[in-house]
């Protein structure tokens, strides 16, 4: 058996699994749209998490079987979902009372850029012709106790996403606790970005070359 391509870093599923491992049993969790949604597939056996979706559901269950979708039962990405036994519905002001009021334990979000200080930019490139759209991201980072970011380490054209300072408009300042990239798990501490774990076949030099912000180990 010949492996002519060495796998570097983690797959999306492995990244989601790494995030899931760090969410304590009994947490109330809000998952952003896209890659963060995958985290729900990897909750370790014996742990119970309750998912909040900001459009008005606490106790979100998995995607419904084909043909059983209810167009009025959707997640924040406007995709059909289900409810778990014990779920509840509420209006938007109550939903953001949960979020802004500090009642949600963990939020997992995607990122365009994260800075060395834990600033997050994930809503706009600031380009003149882009239609700005923010959704609930600014409320989530302002109110949820712990913000985890799951993201590719670099952009599709190889640019660093972990930067000294965000060039894109901020979602929130100093809000990110941990970054889960395909190359490493990195904690944001007062002294800077600390690498906690590196993916398969990733070493510190390789990581440094792909990271604009200073990283420590």
């Amino acid at each position, binding site marked *: 058996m010949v492996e002519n391509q060495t796998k570097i870093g983690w797959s999306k599923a492995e990244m989601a699994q790494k995030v899931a491992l760090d969410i304590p049993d009994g947490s109330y969790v809000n998952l952003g749209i896209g890659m963060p949604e995958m985290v729900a597939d990897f909750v370790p056996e014996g742990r119970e998490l309750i998912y909040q979706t900001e459009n008005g*559901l606490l106790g979100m269950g998995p995607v419904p079987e084909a043909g059983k979708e209810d167009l009025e039962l959707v997640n924040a990405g406007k995709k059909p979902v289900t*409810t778990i036994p014990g779920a509840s519905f509420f*209006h*938007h002001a109550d939903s*953001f009372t949960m979020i802004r009021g500090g009642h949600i334990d963990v939020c997992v979000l995607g990122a365009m850029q994260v800075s060395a200080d834990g600033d997050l930019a994930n809503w706009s490139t600031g380009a003149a012709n882009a*239609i700005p759209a*923010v*959704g*609930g991201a600014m*409320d989530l980072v302002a109110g949820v106790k712990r913000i985890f970011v799951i993201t590719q380490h670099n952009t599709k054209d190889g640019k660093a996403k972990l930067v000294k300072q965000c060039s894109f408009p901020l979602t929130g300042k100093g809000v990110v606790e941990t970054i889960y990239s395909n190359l490493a798990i990195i904690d944001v501490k007062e002294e800077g970005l600390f690498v906690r774990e590196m993916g398969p076949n990733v070493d510190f030099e390789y990581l440094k070359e792909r990271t604009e912000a200073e990283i420590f180990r």
Partner: protein
Amino acid sequence: MINKIVKSAAEAVKDIHDGAIIMISGFGEAGSPLELIHALIDQGAKDLTIVSNNTGSGNVGLAALIEHKRVKKMICSFPRTANSTVFPELYNAGEIELELVPQGTLAERIRSGGAGVPAFYTPASVNTPLAEGKESRIFDGIEYVLERSIKADFSLVKCEQADRYGNLTYHATARNFGPIMCTAAKKAIIQAKKVVEAGRIDPEVVVTPGIFVERIVEVTNPVNESDLVAQKLKYPW
């Protein structure tokens, strides 16, 4: 006798005037009162300011209202969604104004508008472009930005059940902005999937108490926005 039920969507929206501020419920298509919006297109009111989370999709509902140039300004949190082309084109052409608001701030501006609170401080958007030009203040070491509440002339809201007093229940995540929008408008106009006799809705499960509701029209089989978009239909048909 109090009876807030009217016979048609046209009758429900007849007094909406040019220049009105209108809140429209819905998160994407869930909870969007398409029949009321279509009646409003037929009615012809223009220069409207619309408060709604999104800007509609395809060429029906809110997107159609925008396409027919009835809307001068949108106040919303997420103006681009799947199949949303009408708003982006007009926005890029400089033909429609946008006030972009974080979703939770939008909800609280509506809630406080209905509650008689003119403004509030929130931590959301501090240190971002959306806080620029706004007053800020530090409480207990944390910075907050001052946001004004929103009051509307009318709200258009979709609900599940209603009675003649205006007591409402909702279905699943279609509830979203409905209850708070009913409180923040001078006149909340409702399309209900089912009108039931007074007393049939258990007082324990009423979500919107009738005091917040002006009038109701029953729409027993509302269209699904996504079906209309998939068929590439345009309103008016």
